[in-house]
């Protein structure tokens, strides 16, 4: 029987496949429904926050920053309450990261202000003198892609039934409505900023990447 398998490439491949697929079937699939249940009161991301998440993904912040606080005293002292599975229910993709060259960001919204982020993204060493993080000055000039962020929100609402447009929740509406809402959100953040280009852009109705990114940072709590 064994030798027959060794000489029949097709059945051999089937055998290999069964053996390697087994772990995935047992480990991953059956847990799916349970792990994706949101914690109580969790709201989906607003369009502006999603646009900020796009910036986070585009510049690949997960290369250095995690979003996962492990249940150790040393971590909860440093970053706050340890992370719960249900807090990530609307994260597509998850952004836990695997390396902390910089600190964890899962609850950064609790302890950093717009002002802090603005200075830090413009020049990290001005806030943290020994920092090795690069400056992200291009976030102050590049315009955030609100259309794509809306497309993402619309997609998760349609395909995965993410609860947008429910009472007391986050309103999505049409593209135009979403743009207006995003701009209103952006104005609040820009009011706390001092960079003139950013302020001007928001007045013109454009949202620089930095504003979206800060909105996303504030959302992480």
């Amino acid at each position: 029987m064994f030798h027959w398998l060794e000489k029949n490439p097709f059945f051999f491949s089937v055998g290999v496949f069964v053996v390697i697929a087994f772990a995935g079937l047992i480990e991953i699939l059956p847990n799916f429904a349970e792990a994706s249940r949101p914690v109580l009161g969790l709201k989906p991301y607003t369009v502006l926050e999603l646009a900020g998440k796009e910036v986070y993904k585009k510049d690949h912040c997960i290369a250095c920053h995690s979003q996962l606080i492990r249940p150790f005293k040393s971590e909860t002292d440093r970053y706050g309450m340890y992370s719960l599975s249900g807090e990530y229910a609307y994260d597509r993709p998850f952004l836990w990261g695997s390396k902390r060259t910089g600190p964890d960001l899962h609850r950064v919204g609790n302890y950093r202000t717009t002002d802090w982020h603005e200075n830090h993204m413009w020049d990290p060493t001005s806030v943290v003198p020994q920092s090795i993080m690069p400056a992200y000055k291009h976030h102050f000039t590049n315009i955030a892609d609100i259309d794509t962020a809306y497309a993402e929100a619309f997609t998760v609402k349609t395909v995965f039934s993410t609860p947008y447009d429910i009472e007391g929740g986050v309103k999505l509406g049409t593209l135009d409505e979403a743009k207006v809402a995003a701009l209103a959100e952006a104005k609040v953040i820009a009011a706390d900023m001092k960079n003139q280009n950013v302020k001007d852009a928001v007045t013109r109705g454009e949202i620089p990447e930095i504003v979206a990114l800060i909105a996303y940072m504030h959302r992480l709590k």
Partner: protein
Amino acid sequence: MEIRELQAYANFFFTVFLVFLLYGYIIHLYRSEKKGERDYEQYANIALNDEITDAPVERNPKTLDKKEKGGKIDE
């Protein structure tokens, strides 16, 4: 039955089954060599004598040049 429980049973029995197969395979490897049915170590020579003109360790009967080869099929 709850899905978790099912998962555990499936996992346990399939793992036992595979371990069983693996040991069976070990026995098969040594026994077939001892009984002289099949010398597994000879397959190592597939890498050493791999010129296209070298005689295969075991010729594939379905091969293209079935007609023109002189060698016998060792089966």
